[in-house]
C-alpha cells in the first residue's frame, strides 16, 4: 500500500487546460473515489496517476518519492480499464500472468499468484478460456484478477462497472468492496460518474468539476455537509431540492437545499403546491410537487403514497436539515448553526 500526494498538478492538452491545479492526499490503504460529471477530468487525473498521460506541471509522489518521470510499470500500479482491455488471443491464465512473465518471473511463482487471484475472484474454472468465451461480468473479474496478480501499491479503477448491466453492476460492486477488505488495506483509486457507487464503496470521495476539486470527504460528510450547491446536487439520489428567492429568505440565505427525506407533506403550514407526479418504488414513494419555481420539489414518503396528480398539498421542511448557500453557491452552514432556526421555530409555533 502507498500514500499518494498531489501538489498543484496540472494537465493541458495543447492550450486547453484540463486539470487546473489539484492538491490532494490519498492515505495509505484508503478507498478513494473520484466522482464528477463527464468532462470534469476524473479519468484524466487517474491516467496521470497511472503514468499513461504526462503531468504538465506539479508533483505526484508515491510514499514520498516523486514519480512524475516513471513509466507506468515502474510505479507499482495496476489498472482496471472500463472496457476490460483483455488480450483477445490469450487465455485467462495468460492474460493474468502476462505482466509477470514479461518481468521474468519463474513459472511456479506465476502459477501460484494467478491461482490465488483466480480463487479470490471465482475464476478458477475459466483459466483456460479465451475472453470471447466469457460473459461481461467474468471478463471484468479477469481484468481485476490481472491487476491483483501485479501485487501493486496502488489499484486504479477506471469506471469498471459502466459496461455491465444493472444487476451485474450491483453484484460486482459488492465483490469490489469485499476485495478491498480482504486485500488488507491496498490503496484504491476508483473513478466513476455514478454517485451511488461512490457512496457505497468509498472511504473518501473526491468530487471533481471542470478540472478542480470541489470537495473531499467521507461519503457521510459530503452527504450531510456539502460545501457547495454543486456537491449538494451531485451527491444523493434523488437530487437535493434546491430553492431560492422567497423560499430561501427566511433562512437568511441566497439558496437553500433540502433533501427529499427531510420534507414532509403536512395538512397545513409550509409551502403550497400541487402534485405533478408520483413514483412508487415499493418501500418508498417520491412525490413531485410543483411549488411554482419550475422544477418540482421531490418529497419522500414511506410505503405507497396516497397522493394523486393535481392534488394540492402542503410541504414542510425539517429546519435542522436545511442547507444554506450564498449567492456564489458556497455553503454557509446548516440552518441549525444560525439563529434562523430558532426564529423559525418561534414562527411555527404561532
Amino acid at each position, binding site marked *: 500500500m502507498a500514500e499518494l*500526494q498531489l*501538489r*498543484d498538478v496540472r494537465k493541458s492538452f495543447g492550450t486547453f487546460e484540463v486539470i487546473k491545479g489539484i492538491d490532494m492526499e490519498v492515505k495509505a490503504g484508503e478507498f478513494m473515489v473520484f466522482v464528477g460529471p463527464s468532462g470534469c477530468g476524473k479519468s484524466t487525473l487517474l491516467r496521470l496517476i497511472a*503514468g*499513461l*498521460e*504526462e*503531468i*504538465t*506541471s*506539479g*508533483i505526484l*509522489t508515491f510514499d*514520498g*518519492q*516523486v*514519480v*512524475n*518521470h*516513471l*513509466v*507506468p510499470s*515502474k510505479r507499482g500500479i495496476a489498472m482496471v480499464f472500463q472496457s476490460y482491455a483483455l488480450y483477445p488471443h490469450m487465455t485467462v491464465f495468460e492474460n493474468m500472468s502476462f505482466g509477470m512473465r514479461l518481468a521474468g518471473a519463474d513459472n511456479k511463482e506465476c502459477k501460484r499468484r494467478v491461482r490465488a487471484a483466480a480463487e479470490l475472484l471465482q475464476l478458477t474454472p475459466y483459466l483456460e478460456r479465451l475472453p470471447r468465451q466469457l460473459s461481461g461480468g467474468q471478463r471484468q473479474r479477469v481484468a481485476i484478477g490481472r491487476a491483483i496478480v501485479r501485487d501493486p501499491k496502488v489499484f486504479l479503477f477506471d469506471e469498471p462497472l459502466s459496461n455491465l448491466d444493472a444487476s451485474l453492476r450491483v453484484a460486482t460492486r459488492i465483490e469490489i468492496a469485499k476485495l478491498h477488505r480482504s486485500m488488507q488495506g491496498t490503496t484504491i483509486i476508483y473513478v466513476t460518474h455514478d454517485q451511488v457507487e461512490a457512496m457505497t464503496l468509498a472511504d473518501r470521495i473526491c468530487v471533481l468539476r471542470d478540472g478542480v476539486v470541489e470537495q473531499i470527504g467521507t461519503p457521510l460528510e459530503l452527504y450531510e455537509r456539502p460545501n457547495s450547491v454543486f456537491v449538494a446536487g451531485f451527491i444523493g439520489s434523488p437530487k437535493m431540492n434546491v430553492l431560492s428567492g422567497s423560499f430561501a429568505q427566511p433562512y437568511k440565505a441566497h439558496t437553500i437545499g433540502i433533501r427529499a427525506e427531510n420534507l414532509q407533506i403536512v395538512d397545513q403550514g409550509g409551502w403550497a403546491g400541487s402534485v405533478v407526479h408520483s413514483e412508487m418504488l415499493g418501500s418508498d414513494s417520491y412525490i413531485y410537487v410543483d411549488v411554482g419555481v419550475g422544477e418540482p420539489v421531490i418529497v419522500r414518503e414511506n410505503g405507497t403514497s396516497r397522493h394523486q396528480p393535481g392534488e394540492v398539498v402542503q410541504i414542510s421542511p425539517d429546519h435542522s436539515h436545511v442547507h444554506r448557500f450564498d449567492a456564489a453557491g458556497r455553503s454557509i452552514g446548516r440552518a441549525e448553526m444560525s439563529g434562523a432556526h430558532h426564529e423559525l421555530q418561534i414562527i411555527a409555533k404561532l
Partner: protein
Amino acid sequence: MANVVAADTPAALACSSYINSDLKAQRVRSAWIFLAPTLLILALVAAWPLGRTIYFSFTNASLNNLAEAQFIGAENYFSWITLKSGRTVYGGLLADPAWWNAVWNTLKFTLISVSSSTILGMGVALVLNSQFLGRGLVRAAVLVPWALPGVVSAKMWAWMFNDQFGLINDFLLHLGLTSHKIAWLANPDTIMPVILVIDVWRTTPFMALLVLAALQTVPHDIYESAKIDGVHSIKVFWRLTIPLIRPALTVAVIFRTLDALRIFDLVYVLTPSNAETVTMSVLTRQYLFDFDKFAYGCAASTVLFIILAGITVLYMWLGRVNLEGGER
C-alpha cells in the same frame, strides 16, 4: 531507477515542470528506431538510385565506364550546334523525335487504356454488386487476369492473335467478319490495338474491384427511396451512384494512369523495336542498355520521373484532406 526527491523541497517544485514522463520519450525514441530500417532501405533502393540517375543525366557516362563520367551540363536534355553553313542543329532528348514519338505513344496508350478499363470495370462492378448465385466464383474468375505476370498475359494473347495458327483469326474467319488472316502483331496498324486489348484485359479487374468496394459503401436505402419515387434506373446511376463513388473512382483512375504511363512489359515482350508502340519506359531502357546511350537514357528516366512525380504531387495535394482525417 527512481529519483528519491523529497517532494516538498524547493528544488523539486522548481523542476516539476521539466520532469516529463519517461513513457512518451521512450515511445518516440522507439518509433524512430523502428522506422530506421525501412527508411534506410528505401533510401538505398529508391532515393539514392534516383539521385544517381539524375546525376548521370548531366554527364557523359557510359555503361562500361561509369566511374569516369564527366559533367556536361544539360546537353543530354537539350543542345544545339550551329554548323558552318549557318544551320542550327538541335540535339538532346527534348529535340529528339524518337522521344516525342514515345511520349505520344504513351499518352495515347494511357488515355485509351485507362478510359476503357474504367468503363468496363464499372460495368463488371455493377454486375458483381448484385446478389446472385456463384458470385464468389465470378469474383475469383475476374481476379485471374490481374494475378498473371504481364509476360504470361502477353504470350497467351500473342498466341491467340497469331496470324497463322491463332484462334482470333480462325474465329473471325468462321464468323465471316474478315476475309483473310490478319497479321496482328506484325501490322503496324493493328499492333497497338492488340496491346491495348491485353492491357485493358489485365487491368479491368483492379478497376472493377475498386469501384465495387466503393459501390458497397453506398447505403441501400438510397436506391430503395429512388425506386419508390419511380426514378428511372439510368438517372439513378448518373445522379446518385456516380457522385457517391466519385472519390474512390478518382483514386482508382489516378493509380491506373500512373501505371499506364510506366508501361513496359507488354510492349517489350511483344514488340521490342517497333516505332508505333514504343513507350517512354521501353525507349528509355533501350537508351540505357541497348543503344549505349546511358547518360541519355538517364535524362529520359529523369523526364519520365518528373512527369509521374508531377501527377503524384498534384494528387497528394488535392487529396491531402482525406489522409489527415483518419489520424490518431
